[in-house]
Every structure is written in structure tokens, then in C-alpha cells.
């Protein structure tokens, strides 16, 4: 259990070998100074700093960094040492680039941990202003035992003033020497690589939209997300870049949609309330030598556990895409090489005599087999690691990211905050049957969904007739809608249903029975007109209010909360006017939080011709059965999408929706 210290507080230390982890949002210098019983530093050799990073029992890093790990061995301290102070300083006080006062950067966070990473004490140094150097912590001897104290004493005069205060006569020279060593270190270092998901936005990067295989002009996926790079005149032999379009790619990298309407720009992060440093991430237990580290859930960057898990899932997604790319590329190469060698053996006249030809063919096959085996071995190694990671990550997911069969749904409570993302289903690749990557879509929705009830290339070859397909599509739509309702706070997400012929009544039962819908599903042409009219009016009003910068001035009953309209059986029950209203909602709705969920077979509305193409294109296509129509944003593999189905016989949907309905009732009262 980590003790969170406040300034001046102390905490006993039971171990003598410690690690001190420092994280600041910006590169800083970390040093450690030894002091006698009066806290005096006897000489420069009592300070471990970037210019002299190791001293007996102490090790600090050689350069300025945003994150540091200092090693301390208290047993190695001579008897004269009674105090070890951990010092932080900004690398560029007085000239040079970078901040010159701690008040301008995020509060540094310091943690004392054991060698295995278990937290002992932590301290966030707040309240700093003009200081450019600070004594963060002090490890001190008290009656033969060591303790740690949170100090947080800052110095506006930098390290020179700090060292002077601790009684060091060569304070000025030492501070200058540290500055020089840090400058040398900064010149050596290279900027860290950019974060992984944002593969787009490079200078001169041409984003040429590619067309996917299943699209063939009939089912475009929209969303120009990060696209595989467009090579100009690539040399022969490079793999083609004509993979499927990253339909789903934009979801991860895209920023939340920009604020609509005018007014001043809000620079604060929409989901980040404080600048307090995050709690230290869970650390992996030390791995046995020669074995890969044990995976830990939440082992990624982020300000909250949710964000870490989100980033970890995306990291697993990318790793699986890339490791599979390596495997496929090696196997392709092995095959083309074997083909070439076999052809050579065949065309060589000498090989026709005797067994030479056979031997050459045999050798070619053996070479192929060896390379494929090697590739498979590398793939298996990576898959084993990802499987182990998935096994710890999956149970740790919050409801919005979790499968319906995850026990976390049984402990479901109506949330107070909108989650970062929503699980729309699972993704997998044929090479890695054991791994399902959660498909996480950022919330709030940026576009509507289309549950395709048409004929899809069912993977297992099983024949699903169109009646079953419609029922499955509607059930899938209900599962998605229920999940959206469940992860939003009460009253912030409203679902409307248009079911003109009433054919979806059975599938809609979980929604209608629990009473989470705004109104019973609209039936018949009149119902269609009514619902579309009300939503169109809503879009108009909210849009006007937002553009005018007066979202508070909306009439009662209108607000900016999210709305979802499920349309079953389109275009049944729709006249031309209703179709136009639907198109208007598809175009204008997303910017004011009104989204469509079409449960439809595109063929059935073919009569409208290309008029509806933009509508389908604006929606994210999902299927009620497993289907490989989604591409990753890095390599462009075709991933098999599996819808999130509620386990048969499970009451989880009903239980969750009952709670949602109760929360809605008490909210609207």
C-alpha cells in the first residue's frame, strides 16, 4: 500500500534498497545529495548528478527527462551520511529553451518503491511558483532506522541556491557543472517517437483514400482515417498498398469532434478536469531472467485506468496487426522463392537427367518449410504474449469496454460520467484464433451505425435466410442500443425507434418491456412522420442555439443530450418526404448529437438509386454475423468483426436496462 504523503509528513522505510520514480510532464534534472546529521553536504563528491551519476549507494540518470528512476542503497551509505535528499531542477533556468519556473509545468510526482516496484510512499509537489530547483524528498536516519519525508522546499535561485543552503562551499561551480552536463545530454538525445495510434499527420504525407475489397462501389465505409501510405512509383517487389480502407481506423486516432458554433476556443481538454498527476500505473512483477515480462492490465499510458486500458487495447490491436503482417510477409516471400526455385529446377536441362532435378525440388521445398517454420515460431511467440495479455486485460475492463458475459456487468451501476469509448464487438485475424481484440469506438459517437441485414459473406458458410438475418440484425441493434443507454449517465442518452411494420417487436422487447425508450416504437406511416418531424425540429433548434452561442436558451424539452434513432425495415413506411428528412438527419444530426442506427438491407432501397449513397457512406457498417469487412489503420488487414452478443439465456440485458429505466425515472422527476 502506497502512502500518499503531504508536505512535511514522514513514513518509515523497511527496505534499504529502493527506487525513486519521478515523473514530471516536462524534462527535468534529478540529482541526489548526501548530508550529515546537520544536513550539510560536505563536498561535491556527496552529490550524484548528471555529470557524476553514480556515488556509493546512489545512481541518477545522466540526462534531463520527464521520467526518472533513481536507485538508492541505504546500506551502502557511510556512517557519516544521515540524510539523502532527492533534488529536482529545471534544465534551463536563466536562458535556453524550456520552462524556467516550476510554476509553469505540471506538479512533479515522486514515488519511493521497492526494487520490485511495490509502492512505499508517494508525494506530489504542489504549490511551486518561481522556483527552478526543489528538494523533493529526504531519506533520513532516525535512531538507526531510515525514514522518508516529503519536503517540497523550492529555490528560485536554482541548484546554486539550493546547494548553498545545504552548506556546500562550491555550490556555484557544481550547479554550473550540472547545467553543462545536462546541456550535453540534451544535445545527444532524440525526441521520443510520436504516440503510436496517431499515424497520420506527417509533413508531406499524402492521404490518398484507398478502396476496400468488399466495397466495390456498393458499400463504402466512409471515414477517411489514417490511410496506408501512398508510395509514388514504388519499386517492383514491394507489397501492394491496396488493402481495405481503415474504416475503423479513424475511430482511434480521431480527436473528439470540434466544438460546434462560434465563441471562444476552449483549450481545456474536454475530459480532463485536473492537472494532478495520475496515480502510478500498475507495475509488472519482475520477470524471471530469459522470460518475457508478465503482462499487466492497464500497462499503458493514460491519466486514468480507463484511458490506460483503452490505450492498451489499441496497443494490442496494433501489435497483433503488425506481428501478423510480419508472418504473412515471410510466408509470401517463402512461397514466391520456392516457386522461382522450382521453375529454375524445371527449366535447367541438366536437372532432367538423373535425380538432380528431384534433389533441387526437394531442397527448394525444404528451404520453404524452414522459413515458414521460423516465421510461425516468431508468430507463436508473439501470440502467446498477446494471449497472456488479453487474459489479464479482458477481466479488468470496465462495463463499456467489456463483453456482455463479463461479470462486471452483474455489478452494473448507472454511471455518472460518459466513458471514453464503447465496445462495438470483437476483431480477430485467421492466424490468431485465440485472440479477440475489443473493438472500441470513441464516445460520443461521431457518426451513425448501420446494422446490415442484407446478405453478407457469412464466414462459416452457414446459410442464414433473410428472415433470420433480419431478426439477428435487430437483436444486434438492440444490444448496441442497450449498451449505449447503459454507459451514459441517466437522461443523457435517449433512444427512439421507428418500426413501421412492427416486425421488430420481438427483438425490441428488452427495450420496450423495461421502459427505457422515450416512447413506444413508432408504427405505420404516421408514426414515421411524427418521429422524423420531431427529431428534425430538434436538430434545427439545437443547431440554431449552438450557432448562436446560446445553448441555454433552448425551449423546455430540448437539450444537447445524445439521441439515437433506430430505424427498422427501411424503406418500408417511408415516403419521399420522410426519406428526405432521414437524409437531413444523417447529414446534420451528428453535429448536434442525433445519430441514426439503420437496420436495413441496402438492396431493398435500391429503388432510390444513388440518392441514398451518401447516407450509407456516412454510417459505420456493422454486421449481425461474423464478417471480415473492417481494416486496421496500420497495415490494412481485413479483420473479422464479431458482434457483441448477449449469451443465450442470460438476463444481463434485462437487469441492466431495468436499472437504466429506474435511473431515468428518478432523473426526470
Amino acid at each position, binding site marked *: 500500500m502506497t502512502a500518499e504523503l503531504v508536505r512535511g509528513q514522514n513514513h518509515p522505510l523497511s527496505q534499504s534498497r529502493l527506487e525513486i520514480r519521478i515523473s514530471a510532464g516536462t524534462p527535468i534534472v534529478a540529482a541526489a545529495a548526501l548530508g550529515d546529521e546537520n544536513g550539510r553536504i560536505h563536498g561535491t563528491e556527496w552529490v550524484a548528478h548528471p555529470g557524476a551519476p553514480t556515488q556509493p549507494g546512489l545512481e541518477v540518470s545522466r540526462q534531463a527527462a520527464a521520467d526518472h528512476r533513481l536507485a538508492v542503497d541505504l546500506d551502502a551509505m557511510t556512517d557519516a551520511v544521515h540524510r539523502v535528499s532527492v533534488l529536482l531542477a529545471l534544465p534551463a533556468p536563466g536562458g535556453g529553451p524550456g520552462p524556467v519556473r516550476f510554476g509553469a509545468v505540471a506538479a512533479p510526482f515522486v514515488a519511493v518503491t521497492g526494487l520490485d516496484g511495490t509502492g512505499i510512499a508517494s508525494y506530489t509537489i504542489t504549490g511551486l511558483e518561481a522556483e527552478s530547483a526543489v528538494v523533493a524528498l529526504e531519506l533520513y536516519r532516525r535512531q538507526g532506522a531510515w525514514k522518508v519525508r516529503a519536503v517540497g522546499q523550492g529555490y528560485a535561485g536554482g541548484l546554486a541556491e539550493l546547494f548553498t543552503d545545504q552548506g556546500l562551499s562550491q555550490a556555484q561551480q557544481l550547479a554550473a557543472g550540472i547545467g553543462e552536463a545536462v546541456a550535453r545530454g540534451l544535445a545527444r538525445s532524440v525526441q521520443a517517437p510520436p504516440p503510436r495510434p496517431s499515424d497520420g499527420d506527417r509533413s508531406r504525407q499524402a492521404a490518398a483514400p484507398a478502396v476496400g475489397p468488399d466495397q466495390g462501389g456498393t458499400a463504402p465505409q466512409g471515414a477517411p482515417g489514417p490511410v496506408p501510405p501512398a508510395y509514388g512509383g514504388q*519499386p517492383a517487389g514491394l507489397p501492394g498498398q491496396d488493402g481495405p480502407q481503415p474504416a475503423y481506423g479513424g475511430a482511434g486516432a480521431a480527436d473528439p469532434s470540434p466544438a460546434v458554433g462560434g465563441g471562444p476556443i476552449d483549450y481545456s481538454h474536454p475530459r480532463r478536469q485536473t492537472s494532478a498527476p495520475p496515480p502510478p500505473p500498475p507495475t509488472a512483477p519482475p520477470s524471471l531472467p530469459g522470460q518475457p515480462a508478465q503482462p499487466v492490465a492497464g500497462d499503458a499510458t493514460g491519466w486514468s485506468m480507463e484511458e490506460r486500458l483503452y490505450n492498451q487495447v489499441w496497443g494490442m490491436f496494433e501489435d497483433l496487426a503488425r506481428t501478423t503482417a510480419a508472418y504473412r510477409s515471410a510466408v509470401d516471400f517463402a512461397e514466391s522463392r520456392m516457386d522461382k526455385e522450382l521453375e529454375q529446377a524445371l527449366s535447367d536441362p541438366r536437372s532432367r537427367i538423373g535425380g538432380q532435378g528431384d534433389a533441387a525440388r526437394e531442397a527448394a521445398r525444404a528451404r520453404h518449410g524452414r522459413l515458414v517454420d521460423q516465421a510461425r515460431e516468431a508468430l507463436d511467440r508473439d501470440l502467446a504474449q498477446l494471449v497472456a495479455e488479453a487474459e489479464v486485460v479482458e477481466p479488468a475492463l470496465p462495463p463499456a469496454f467489456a463483453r456482455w458475459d463479463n461479470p462486471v456487468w452483474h455489478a452494473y451501476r448507472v454511471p455518472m460520467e460518459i466513458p471514453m469509448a464503447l465496445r462495438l464487438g470483437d476483431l480477430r485475424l485467421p492466424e490468431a484464433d485465440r485472440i479477440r481484440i475489443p473493438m472500441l469506438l470513441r464516445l460520443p459517437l461521431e457518426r451513425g451505425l448501420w446494422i446490415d441485414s442484407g446478405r453478407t459473406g457469412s464466414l462459416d458458410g452457414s446459410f442464414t435466410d433473410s428472415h433470420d438475418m433480419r431478426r439477428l440484425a435487430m437483436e444486434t441493434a438492440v444490444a448496441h442500443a442497450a449498451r449505449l443507454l447503459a454507459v451514459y449517465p441517466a437522461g443523457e442518452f435517449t433512444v427512439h425507434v421507428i418500426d413501421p411494420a412492427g416486425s421488430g417487436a420481438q427483438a425490441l422487447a428488452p427495450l420496450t418491456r423495461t421502459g427505457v425508450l422515450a416512447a413506444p416504437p413508432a408504427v405505420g406511416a404516421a408514426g414515421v412522420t411524427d418521429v422524423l418531424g420531431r427529431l428534425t425540429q430538434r436538430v434545427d433548434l439545437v443547431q440554431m442555439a449552438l450557432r448562436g452561442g446560446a445553448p441555454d436558451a433552448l425551449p423546455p424539452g430540448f437539450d444537447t443530450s445524445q439521441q439515437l434513432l433506430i430505424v427498422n425495415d427501411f424503406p418500408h413506411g417511408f415516403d419521399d418526404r420522410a426519406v428526405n428528412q432521414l437524409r437531413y438527419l444523417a447529414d446534420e444530426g451528428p453535429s448536434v448529437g442525433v445519430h441514426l442506427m439503420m437496420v436495413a438491407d441496402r438492396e431493398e432501397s435500391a429503388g432510390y438509386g444513388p440518392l441514398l449513397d451518401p447516407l450509407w457512406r456516412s454510417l459505420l457498417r456493422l454486421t449481425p454475423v461474423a464478417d471480415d469487412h473492417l481494416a486496421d489503420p496500420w497495415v490494412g488487414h481485413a479483420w473479422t468483426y464479431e458482434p457483441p452478443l448477449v449469451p443465450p439465456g442470460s438476463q444481463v440485458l434485462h437487469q441492466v436496462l431495468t436499472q437504466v429505466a429506474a435511473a431515468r425515472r428518478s432523473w426526470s422527476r
Partner: protein
Amino acid sequence: MTKGQAISLQKNDGGSLTAVRMGLGWQAAPRRGLFGSRTREVDLDASAVLFADKQPVDVVFFRHLVSDDGSVRHTGDNLVGGVGQGGDDEAILVDLSRVPVHIDQIVFTVNSFTGQTFQEVQNAFCRLVDETNGQELARYTLAGGGAYTAQIMAKVHRSGSGWTMTALGNPANGRTFQDLMPAILPVL
């Protein structure tokens, strides 16, 4: 390192390296005469081409920053060159343990995208760094800038169970790595 020299990428303790960084740094040569302060921006680009049995399989450059398999990563395009302290301006990270099994050579090249020849570049170097501890393994300075717009800097190739780096330094001409393919093939 000198041209043609090869070093084995083994650690001193016998273990092999897991991750290396190929760093590239340069500065624009100052203009002679008047208006010397008008900076001439020289945009050099580092690229890495992955070969399997002399066939190019993948390439990492400013438009494709990560190889499909994820083992080779470019840290991003630098359009103007060094601020002058001799740090890396562009870098390519290679995770040697993750390079696909069929890739046997990785060739590193430098091109002048803006078309200046290496006569207008000074202090250009390329170096190989052990990414795990920041130690410099090899440094190769682009000596005597000539009237050419590209250079094939070095190659890292499999030898036995480990990898070897060979300094090449062959001049060539071209704006991006594609133009260099004829010049790269002979060094494989």
C-alpha cells in the same frame, strides 16, 4: 568507422543487441557573401529499405513511418536539419529481435529532398546507437560533400544468429529512396 568497415552488433558481454537507432544529423552550409543570414533549408531524409534475398519487401521513410511488421520505426521527418549541437535530426529505430525472419538486410539511405547536393551540407553524420542504453556503437561522418544528392550510408545484415553493420557511404543521386534502388542493389 570508415567506408567499407564492418562491425558485429554483439554486445561486449556476448549477448546480441535488441534495439538499435540509426541517427542522422546535418546542418546547412552557410551562404557565402552577402545575405549570409538568409538560411537555406536543406531537407535530408533518412530511409531504411528492408530486403529479403535482394528483393525489397518494405521501406520506412517519411511517408511510411513504421514498417508493416512494426520492427522499424522512423521518428519523423525533419525538414530543416540541425540546430547545430550535433544531435540526431532524424532517427530510425530498429527492433532487431522483431525483424521478420525473412528480412536479411536493412539498408539505410539519405536523400536530399530539396535537391541541394551534399556540397551545401555540413557536419553530416550517421551513427548507430544501442537504443537500450544510449551508447554509441559507430559513427560515420559524411566526409567531403560532393556533387551528389544522396548517399547509401550503411547496411545492417544478418550474420549467423546476430547482425552486422557495414558502413557504405556510396554516393548516389535521387530525391527519395525509389530513385536509389539501382544504386542500392549492387551493395546487397
